[in-house]
């Protein structure tokens, strides 16, 4: 085998390897996923700021029961609760039930007078089940055992590189950038237990 054949074989080997490993990729187009935990903490902070500046509306569906599936689909439903709340700053307002609440306290209008939210069974249930979403995010950001990105539901963004202005420029190029916007936080078993106890103490299971 002469020098040329060896060179050809070598080039062929390098080419095959790069095709198998996903094609030729220039060094500056290699993507690095952002830190998912940092992104989760930022999401909590951003939602807090947004609550203070503009506010937001939350629809919460709580479903509970027994599953025997790997995807955890409930096959025997025992809990179905639905709530809607508007948040502005630290206060949430539930218009349908005339309830104002903060993460620790609440007031409900019963048609005649205002009373402490947690003084009724229904109020206690709401208080236990309807956690403020910004708090849920904040707690997850602090306590999560791990945080990972999930596959995006939106197509990758095509980012165009600008052409160089010099005479020797060979032209602009475009590359795709993944959109990182879905994540999963695995919470410690103590947090899971806390939510489980909250559910038990809400009283919504006692009828079952």
């Amino acid at each position, binding site marked *: 085998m002469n020098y040329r054949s060896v060179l050809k074989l070598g080039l062929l080997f390098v080419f095959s390897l790069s095709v198998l490993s996903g094609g030729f990729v220039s060094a500056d187009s290699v993507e690095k996923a952002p830190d998912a935990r940092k*992104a*989760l903490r*930022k*999401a909590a902070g*951003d*939602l807090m700021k*947004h609550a203070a500046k*503009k*506010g*937001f*509306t*939350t*629809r*919460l*569906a*709580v*479903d*509970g*029961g*027994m*599953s*025997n599936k*790997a995807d*955890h689909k*409930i096959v*025997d439903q*025992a809990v179905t609760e639905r709530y809607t709340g508007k*948040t*502005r700053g630290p206060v949430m307002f539930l218009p349908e039930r005339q309830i104002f609440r903060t993460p620790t*306290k*609440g*007031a409900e209008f019963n048609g005649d*007078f*205002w*009373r*402490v939210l947690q003084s009724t069974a229904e109020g206690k249930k709401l208080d236990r089940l309807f956690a403020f*979403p910004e708090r*849920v*995010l904040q707690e997850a950001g602090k306590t*999560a055992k791990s945080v990972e990105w999930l596959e*995006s539901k*939106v197509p990758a963004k095509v980012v165009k590189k600008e052409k160089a202005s010099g005479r020797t420029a060979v032209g602009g190029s475009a590359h795709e950038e993944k959109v990182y*916007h*879905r*994540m*999963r*936080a*695995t*919470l*410690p*078993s103590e*947090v*899971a*237990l806390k*939510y*489980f106890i909250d*559910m038990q103490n809400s009283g919504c*299971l*006692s009828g*079952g």
Partner: protein
Amino acid sequence: MSEYLSRADRTQTRSFLDVELDHETGLANKLELLIMTGMKNEQGKTAKGDAAFGDGTEHVVFRYSYDLQHQKVDQFEIPRAAQKMLR
């Protein structure tokens, strides 16, 4: 449900929070909090690890699905009596 709860094994719990951010604004759009607890079988034993939450194994599930909408919310006018209760 009380029958399931009596069989719930609190030493086998798991929880995941799935978060979806708006890809334009970065604000959270959806949260799904999944809480799971293993259940003891008729012999009073609970499967360990992943097996406690797999196909064919009964487990207790609570799912909290938050849907967030970011249209502006006007400042609340909270009646004085209610304000006192929030302090």
